[in-house]
């Protein structure tokens, strides 16, 4: 059974249909990239999948309707990393990452050994241990992005939804973050990541879903989903193909 399954999902904000009739399944052990032009509806679709906004259609978590779950049950099952990596207060990195354990805490308990182990693991995976005691607002953009990811990983949820997890990262950290997401999937997680770097998406994702004008226009093997024709139609770009690690990956050429 798929970990998270969306069927014919439509999301309206006001009178506008932002997501139209989108169907997408996420299976355990799979890293899926969600690509599409700015304003295509990727973030809105992801927020609906995370249960944060009402949507028409059916979204099921392990076969149960998402809307039937209590907020905390949902929070334990789905970790969501919004874009922008916002931190409003200069809290320590360790305290921020510990927030990922909030869905596991009950009202009166303090942190458990499980919580501390999960936080330590998330800090280690994202190479953020070195600044665990620093105020998060003093970090560089790339460091903040990794702390934000560490927070989401610390929940150890079976489903991880990450909105542009590699934005603001230098090439090396883009690779480490993609590696991390793949690792999370190999460990049995179902991972969906919104990406703008098509090359990275093709290299790391098991599947790529392409969103255009609120609809999913392709979903499948990266090379097939991101064919030259489709990239031209959806993004308005000419693209070339190169081979890396025995994979055919697209590279944006020029705007059409």
């Amino acid at each position, binding site marked *: 059974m798929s970990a998270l399954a969306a069927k014919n999902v439509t999301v309206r904000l006001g009178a506008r249909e932002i997501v139209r009739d989108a169907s997408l399944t996420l299976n355990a052990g799979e890293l899926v990239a969600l690509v599409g032009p700015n304003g295509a509806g990727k973030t809105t679709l992801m*927020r609906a999948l995370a249960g944060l906004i009402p949507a028409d259609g059916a979204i099921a978590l392990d076969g149960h309707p998402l809307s039937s779950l209590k907020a905390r049950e949902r*929070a334990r099952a789905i970790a*969501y990393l919004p874009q922008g990596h*916002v931190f409003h*207060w200069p*809290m320590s990195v360790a305290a921020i990452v510990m927030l990922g354990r*909030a*869905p596991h805490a009950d009202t009166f308990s303090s942190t458990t050994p499980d919580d501390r182990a999960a936080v330590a693991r998330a800090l280690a995976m994202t190479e953020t241990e070195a600044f665990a005691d620093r105020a998060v607002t003093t970090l560089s953009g790339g460091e903040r992005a990794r702390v934000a990811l560490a927070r989401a990983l610390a929940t150890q949820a079976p489903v991880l939804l990450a909105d542009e997890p590699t934005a603001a990262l230098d090439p090396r950290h883009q690779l480490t973050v993609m590696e991390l997401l793949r690792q999370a999937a190999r460990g049995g997680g179902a991972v969906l990541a919104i990406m703008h770097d098509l090359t990275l998406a093709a290299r790391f994702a098991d599947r790529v879903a392409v969103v255009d004008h609120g609809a999913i226009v392709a979903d499948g093997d990266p090379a097939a989903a991101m064919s030259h024709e489709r990239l031209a139609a959806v993004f308005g770009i000419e693209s070339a193909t190169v081979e890396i690690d025995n994979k055919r990956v697209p590279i944006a050429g020029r705007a059409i």
Partner: protein
Amino acid sequence: MKRRGFPIELALAALIVVLAILSLAVGPAGLSPRAAIAGLFSGDGPAGIIVRDIRLPRTLLAALIGATLGLSGAALQGLLRNPLAEPALFGAPQAAAAAAALVIAFGFAPVTSFAVPVAAILGATLSIAALVAVAGRRASLTVTLLAGLALASFAGAATALILNLAPNPFIALEIAFWLLGSLEDRSRDHLVIAAPFMLASWIVLATQARAFRALTLGEDAAASLGIDVARTRMLVVIGVAVGVGAAVAVAGAVGFVGLVAPHLVRRASGSDPARLVLPSALAGAALVLAADIAVRLGPSAVEIKLGVVTALIGVPIFLSMIFRERRLLEEGAS
């Protein structure tokens, strides 16, 4: 997450005890702290009457109101993720005062009836709900402050209108003084009227501490962690309005405590908006107790108004905070 050093909560609690004893001792009939404590516990003789019947209600009110305002500031800041959030900047006390003044001026109710705090709470609810609605999901600093300015001005105009139209000039004068904020001549009746509302507001606001911590990641991430953000927003609006409304109903407008108290203890709380809640309440209590002692030590025959003292302390701190945050303001971001 390790805690370092002496717990700030204990230090503040000790400070409050010292200030409370001083508050019982200071007044036209000067008592030594020792005599004040003796009077409090034995209740014998003039010292007992002065301390128990006249000064104790005032001291307790100062502590309760201070704690309420400190807690309200911490809660609004946690909700709006903004260190400049403070009930007075959003016109909550002004709106509460306008509603209470309306009730008093037109003789709907005597000053010590429950109608006054209820009216004040309704006024505060309107202004805070309007503010939270205007500030919206993104809670941008600039928009929030501008909306607060507009609401405070509107409430001020409403109060002026009530003073204009008050049927009796003596009542108008009384309201004008009350608006400045004071704990002079407050009795057990005032305590009985206001305390239940303030305690209720503490309970409501304290339950939202964890939500404030999660909100540091923004509303979407907090919601994804299982926080019901809409519920938190509503409870904070109600909790702050009930607490501030009750405080204003008995003491008039005492501003800036909600700004200064969290500011003083933020660093010691690791900037964690959940851990900030209790120290903020304690710091608020200490601040108002100290300010209320200060107004009685002045050289003049009449007491300086409490609200004047808190504003004189609070506004410079507020300006210095704006100065530090000005780059954010100029960018129009939050």
